[in-house]
C-alpha cells in the first residue's frame, strides 16, 4: 500500500492563524490534503461537507468550546478521528476530551515531528476501525446466509423423510404389525422434535438479525392470550389439562410484535403441558398498574428444582422429566426471554417443586 489512491483529508480547526498555516505546511509536505477553519461553527459546517479523515481541534477558542465541537463531530461524521490541541499546561481538559471520544491530544507548543507522529497514529487508528467494521459486516452476512442455507438444507430432508413415512404407512398398510406401527410413530416423533429444534434455532437467529421483532405497533394482549389458548387447547385436551384465563376487561395494549408475542405464550403454555400431569390446570391471568402490564401463566405441574431455576432461560438447558414426553429443543425459554427483551420487557419465573410453576411476562405501558 505505498500508493494511496486518494489522499487522506486532514482538517485543522484553530483560531490561531500561525498554527493553521504551520500545520498545513508540515502535513502537506507529508503528502496529505489539508483544510482549515478558524472557529468552531465554520469547523462543523466544513467538516459536515467534506467528511475529513482526521481533525485537529483547538480546545480553547472563542465562541463554541472544543468539547462541544468534539461531541457534534463524533455524532455527525462516521469514523472521524479527533485529536485535540491543548493550549494550556493542564491535561485535565485533554483527558475530558478523550473521555468524550477524542483519540489523542497534542499539547502546544509542538514540533513538526510530534505533529507528524500524531497524524500517522490517528490515521492508522481510523483505518483499523474501518477494517474492523468491514470484517464485522462480512461476518454478519456470512452468518445470515448460513442460516438461510442450513434451514433449507436441514428442513428439506426432514420434510421428505416425513413424507416417506406417510407413504410407508399407505404402501405397507395392513401388512404392518402393531410393533412396526409403533416404531414408525416413534420415528415420526423424533423427527418432529428435530424439526422443532431447527425451527427454534432459526427463531433465535431471527431475533438476532431483527427480522422477528421488527413490528412495533399497539398489540392487544387479550387477543394474544386468546389466540395462544385457541392454538394450545387441542393439546391441553389430549393431555387431560384444563386451561383457564382471567383477564381484566380493560387490559391496556402494549407496543410490540404480535406474532412473536403469540409465540412466547405458546411456548410457555407448551412447556406447562409438558410438565403438568393429566388432571392438572393451566391458568392465565393479567393485571396492570400505571407503569406495567403483566401476564402470568401458572400450572399445577412438577415445578422446577430450586437449583435449576437460574439456568432455565439459558440456551439448550432442558428440564428432566419423569417420562419421555418432554422432548424439546432446549431453546424455547431462551427464545421467550430474548423476545421479551426485544420488547423492553421481562420474563420471570417462580416455582415450587411438586406444586407448580408461574411465568410472568412484564411489559412497560
Amino acid at each position: 500500500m505505498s500508493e494511496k489512491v486518494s489522499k487522506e483529508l486532514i482538517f485543522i480547526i484553530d483560531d490561531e492563524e500561525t498554527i493553521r498555516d504551520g500545520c498545513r505546511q508540515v502535513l502537506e509536505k507529508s503528502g496529505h490534503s489539508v483544510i482549515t477553519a478558524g472557529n468552531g461553527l465554520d469547523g462543523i459546517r466544513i467538516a459536515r461537507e467534506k467528511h475529513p479523515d482526521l481533525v485537529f481541534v483547538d480546545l480553547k477558542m472563542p465562541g463554541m468550546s472544543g468539547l462541544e465541537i468534539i461531541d457534534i463531530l463524533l455524532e455527525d461524521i462516521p469514523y472521524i478521528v479527533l485529536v485535540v490541541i491543548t493550549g494550556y499546561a493542564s491535561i485535565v481538559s485533554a483527558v475530558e476530551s478523550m473521555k468524550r471520544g477524542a483519540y489523542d491530544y497534542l499539547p502546544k507548543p509542538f514540533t513538526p515531528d510530534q505533529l507528524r507522529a500524531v497524524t500517522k497514529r490517528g490515521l492508522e487508528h481510523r483505518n483499523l476501525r474501518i477494517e474492523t467494521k468491514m470484517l464485522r459486516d462480512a461476518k454478519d452476512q456470512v452468518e445470515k446466509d448460513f442460516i438461510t442455507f442450513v434451514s433449507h438444507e436441514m428442513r428439506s430432508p426432514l420434510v421428505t423423510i416425513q413424507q416417506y413415512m406417510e407413504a410407508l404407512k399407505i404402501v405397507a398398510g395392513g401388512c404392518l404389525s402393531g410393533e412396526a406401527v409403533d416404531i414408525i410413530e416413534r420415528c415420526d416423533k423424533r423427527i418432529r422434535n428435530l424439526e422443532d429444534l431447527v425451527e427454534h434455532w432459526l427463531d433465535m437467529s431471527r431475533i438476532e438479525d431483527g427480522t422477528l421483532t421488527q413490528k412495533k405497533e399497539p398489540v392487544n394482549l387479550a387477543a394474544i392470550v386468546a389466540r395462544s389458548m385457541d392454538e394450545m387447547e387441542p393439546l391441553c385436551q389430549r393431555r387431560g389439562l384444563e386451561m383457564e384465563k382471567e383477564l381484566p376487561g380493560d387490559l391496556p395494549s402494549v407496543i410490540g410484535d404480535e406474532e412473536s408475542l403469540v409465540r412466547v405464550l405458546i411456548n410457555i403454555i407448551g412447556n406447562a403441558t409438558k410438565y403438568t400431569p393429566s388432571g392438572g390446570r393451566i391458568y392465565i391471568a393479567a393485571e396492570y398498574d400505571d407503569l406495567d402490564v403483566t401476564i402470568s401463566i401458572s400450572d399445577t405441574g412438577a415445578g422446577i428444582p430450586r437449583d435449576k431455576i437460574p439456568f432455565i432461560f439459558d440456551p439448550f438447558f432442558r428440564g428432566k422429566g419423569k417420562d419421555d414426553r418432554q422432548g424439546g429443543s432446549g431453546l424455547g425459554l431462551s427464545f421467550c426471554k430474548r423476545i421479551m427483551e426485544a420488547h423492553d420487557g421481562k420474563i420471570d419465573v417462580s416455582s415450587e417443586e411438586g406444586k407448580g410453576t408461574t411465568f410472568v411476562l412484564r411489559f412497560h405501558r
Partner: protein
Amino acid sequence: MTAKKKVLLIDDDKDFLMATRLILEKSGYEVFLAEDGKSGVDMVKSVAPDLAIVDMMMETWGEGFEVVSKIRSMEQGKSTPLIVLSAVDLQGPYQVFEPSDESPKVNMVLHKPVKADDLIKYVGELIG
C-alpha cells in the same frame, strides 16, 4: 373401465416426488413427475393432468409463483385444479403462501409434509 385420473407433481426434491407418488398411486391415480418448474409447465400441455400439485419452495421462492402463473395463463391449465405446497418461510418469519386477489387462483394450499390421509382426501374432493 374408466381411465385413471392424472395428477402432475411439480417439485425439485426427487424424494418428495417419490413419496407423494406412492401415496397417490396407491389411491388409484396416474401420477406424473416434474423435477423443475419448466418441465412441469411443459407437462401441463403434454399430459393434460386432471390436477397439478406445485411446490412453492423450489430453488427460489419465485419459481413456484411463476409456475402457477404460467399454468393459469395456458389454455390447458386455465381451469386445472391446482394445489400448492408450502413449507413455512424461506422469505421471512412465518410467511407462508397465502393466495391474494392479485395472485393466480389456486384451489388449495397444503403444508409440507402432507399427511397421506389429507392428501388423498383433498385430491379426492377436487377431482374424485
